[in-house]
């Protein structure tokens, strides 16, 4: 049978000390974040553009999150890059292209229409048609 065994007293003290003295492993930089990592652009229209783009860019170190959602240092620096380039007048799609050129389509949450991805785009339409066809058969039978 499995059960918890209480540690003897000296062991407990050591364990408690270990918790108290534990420091987080060095995994993040000591530098302050990029100026535009957590600061919105002064122009609301530009900020909206930047936000929309950031929500469709994938964080490189926290795969599965967008850079808008992530608190990783690197995501912050990427938000800084996006906002600074939008501020300088660059188009969001140009910034996406610049990143895709470096990291591949992987970095973008918006899949392009290309031979590899056409099933992805066609599937909803095909499923809808299939559903309509099935429903038609059902209605017909009922009328009879």
């Amino acid at each position, binding site marked *: 049978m499995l059960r918890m065994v209480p540690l003897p007293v000296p062991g407990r003290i050591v364990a408690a000390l270990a918790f108290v003295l534990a420091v987080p492993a060095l995994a993040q930089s000591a530098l302050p974040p990029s100026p535009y990592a957590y600061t919105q652009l002064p122009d609301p229209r530009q900020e909206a553009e930047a936000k929309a783009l950031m929500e469709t860019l994938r964080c490189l170190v926290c795969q599965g999150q967008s850079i808008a959602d992530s608190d990783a240092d690197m995501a912050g620096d*990427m938000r800084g890059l996006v906002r600074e380039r939008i501020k300088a007048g660059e188009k969001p799609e140009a910034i996406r292209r610049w990143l895709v050129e470096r990291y591949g389509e992987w970095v973008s949450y918006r899949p392009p229409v290309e031979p590899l991805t056409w099933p992805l785009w066609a599937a909803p339409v095909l499923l809808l048609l299939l559903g309509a066809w099935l429903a038609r058969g059902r209605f017909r039978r009922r009328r009879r």
Partner: protein
Amino acid sequence: MRRALIWLPLAVFAAFLLVFLLGLGKRDDPAIRSQMIGKPVPAFALAPAVPGHPGLAAADLARGGPRLVNVFASWCLPCRAEAPQLMALKRRGIPIDAVAIRDRGEDVAAFLRDYGDPFERVGADPRSQVQFALGSSGVPETFLVDGRGIIRLQHIGDIRPEEVDAIHAAWERAK
């Protein structure tokens, strides 16, 4: 026709099962490879990260001979594990430059003092901008750049002792 259609859902299920079973055998590779291999190093110029080493610019990487560019940080633990391998590569005569990501000068200096200093030039990249330009997605990473400034290889993660020979060979081939 009707009778055959009854088997369709089972067939679809079997197809999915097959795809998933095949997927189980695949090795998961979370690394995001740079698409810049075979392309010239993008233009950049970084200020020195630490006293005693000049900064690093793209032009420094197109001076006739192949070089390694180590993307590292003093706050990165695998970079410490990698340090002896970089020293070994340097002893074999391979020039190594570095980009220090989100780092402070005094921290970089302490890192080089504690774990060895194989670098010629060390550029400071406080906001990861050159890291993004290179298509690098973490620390440590090592790029091999040939004498014309073309990126030839990206090594993701720390260089292990058993990988030193392969990197040395790639450097020889890039000559």
